[in-house]
């Protein structure tokens, strides 16, 4: 089969690789019909995620048709159309039983590595380095799905792929970020980052009843999409004025947003050029793994007693994390890889009811063979790129 493989920093290529096979009774093989490039795939593309090996198949957002199931999978059969959540979860461990699927104790065969870095193992993730299990990803024609009796979500309506594909990651991730903000109606939420996850965080905050949603980014067309499609009420382009904290205070009568969502993560850009240059240099020299411009501004801007929701992916250590502001303002931090399985059904119902059309983010639909061009176009935000869907 053909698959998009990582072959070094800033290099992916579509190669012929062996077809996946059932390895365990609870496996399924899925013939992929749609797959997407995620912003967090760029962290591997850029070389910031350790434990990648040349030849690793990328991709953790995919859906398709079940072609084969193991003996232990009774809820699926060949021909079923499924969306596959990016965290691999066993369904039986303490964490899975508490719906904390992204912390599954059993699905990451390299959990020891993760434990050394994070204190505890994390769940396996498709196509996301050997730190998360070294599983082959979904930017391919076929994928092996472990614990297929727990993860894959059956799509029984005739909704098009692109309305349900993003249930695999970015929609639930954005929704979880908004849910962390404890929106009950009338709040002001600031969302840092208007990439695909940021767009869904904005849309989810709107769905949950936030009165004002402020999108922050440095790319005009993404801010325009945030306003036109996702429902942002205000936007801040920090290329025009890098003092985001001051602008957020101005927009909120000096108080600051009730909650802030960091949908940026480890490759944040600062509007202050010297700050950005210094952080870029430190990260390139591996003196820090995570650039903190967005998270620092988020913490400084959030009103006292507010909530800082972090859904952008971070990998290790950050310099100048503002613990003083965090503590003295009494902020609550909520964060995590998304427990996607928990959100599949309710968000599917929202899509079905027409509350949201998740396909709004798709700006590029390319054949799988175009994946290398897709990665570059997405990374460099060329051609108004927000989200790339690949068709195997």
């Amino acid at each position, binding site marked *: 089969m053909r698959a998009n493989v990582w*072959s*070094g*920093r*800033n*290099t992916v*290529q*579509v190669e012929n690789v062996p077809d996946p096979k059932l390895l365990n009774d609870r496996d399924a093989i899925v013939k992929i019909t749609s797959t997407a490039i995620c912003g967090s795939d760029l962290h591997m593309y850029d*070389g910031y995620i350790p434990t990648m090996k*040349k030849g690793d198949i990328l991709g953790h957002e995919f859906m398709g048709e079940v072609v084969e199931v193991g003996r232990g999978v009774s809820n699926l059969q060949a021909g079923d159309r499924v969306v596959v959540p990016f965290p691999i979860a066993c369904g039986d461990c303490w964490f899975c039983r508490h719906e904390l699927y992204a912390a599954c104790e059993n699905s990451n065969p390299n959990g020891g590595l993760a434990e050394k870095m994070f204190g505890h193992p994390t769940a396996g993730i498709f196509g996301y380095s050997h730190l998360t299990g070294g599983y082959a990803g979904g930017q391919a024609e076929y994928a092996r799905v472990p614990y297929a009796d727990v993860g894959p979500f059956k799509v029984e309506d005739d909704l098009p792929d692109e309305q349900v594909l993003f249930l695999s990651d970015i929609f639930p991730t954005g929704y979880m970020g908004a849910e962390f903000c404890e929106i009950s*109606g009338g709040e002001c939420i600031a969302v840092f980052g208007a990439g695909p996850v940021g767009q869904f965080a904005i*849309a989810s905050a*709107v*769905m*949950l*009843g936030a009165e004002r949603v402020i999108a922050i980014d440095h790319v005009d*067309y993404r801010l*325009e*999409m945030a306003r*036109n*499609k*996702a*429902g942002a009420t205000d936007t801040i382009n920090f290329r025009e004025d890098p003092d985001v904290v001051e602008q957020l205070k101005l927009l909120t009568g000096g108080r600051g947003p009730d909650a802030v969502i960091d949908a940026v993560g480890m490759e944040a850009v600062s509007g202050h050029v010297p700050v950005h240059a210094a952080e870029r240099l430190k990260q*390139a020299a591996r003196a820090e793994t995570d650039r903190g411009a967005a998270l620092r501004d988020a913490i400084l801007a959030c009103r006292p007693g507010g909530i800082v929701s972090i859904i952008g992916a971070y990998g290790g250590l950050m310099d100048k994390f503002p613990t003083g502001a965090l503590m003295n303002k009494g902020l609550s931090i909520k964060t995590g890889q998304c427990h996607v399985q928990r959100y599949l059904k309710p968000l599917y119902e929202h899509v079905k*009811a*027409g*509350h*949201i*059309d*998740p*396909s*709004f*983010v*798709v*700006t*590029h*639909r*390319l*054949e799988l063979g*175009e994946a*290398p*061009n*897709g*990665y*570059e*176009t997405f990374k*460099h935000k*060329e*051609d*108004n*790129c*927000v989200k790339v*869907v690949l*068709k195997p």
Partner: protein
Amino acid sequence: MTENSTAGFPRPVDATLHGATDYSVGAALMTVFPRLARVEGTPAGRQIRTAGAIHAGYSTLTDYPLGVVRLLPYKAHLAIDAIGALALAATPFATGQFRQGRSQWVPHVALSAFELVSLMLSDPTGRGNYKADVAAVRRSNMEDPHRKVHDKTPAVTRRSDSVARETAQ
């Protein structure tokens, strides 16, 4: 695009970053560096200023993303960088000025070492930091990005609106 230029020794400096370094180092050598290195008004200062000017000069002629008149192939630029670095390091010893003290040769050798290290880290393919064929992307894209960004139909319903709609039903 599929060539793996990063196999083996890591070469994280692409042509764009290399160009930015060329101009910033060239400008520094022509302006503040001689004073900072305390060689202002000496042969060493003049040599370093000249080296900076030459460097910035052929950078403007190089065929890379920050080039102005792109006449000089990038690999030729890298070769000139290497020859220039060695020539700069050799100058104080060729002229005999190294006998006048360390300030007359250490800056030359340090700059030469910096240049050689940055050369070792530079991706010799000459690609800028955007390596895709955007024309090919546009040809094969089955979606219209402009419409998706600029169309003003909201993709999401506010909770108050959806609750009202469901109540009415």
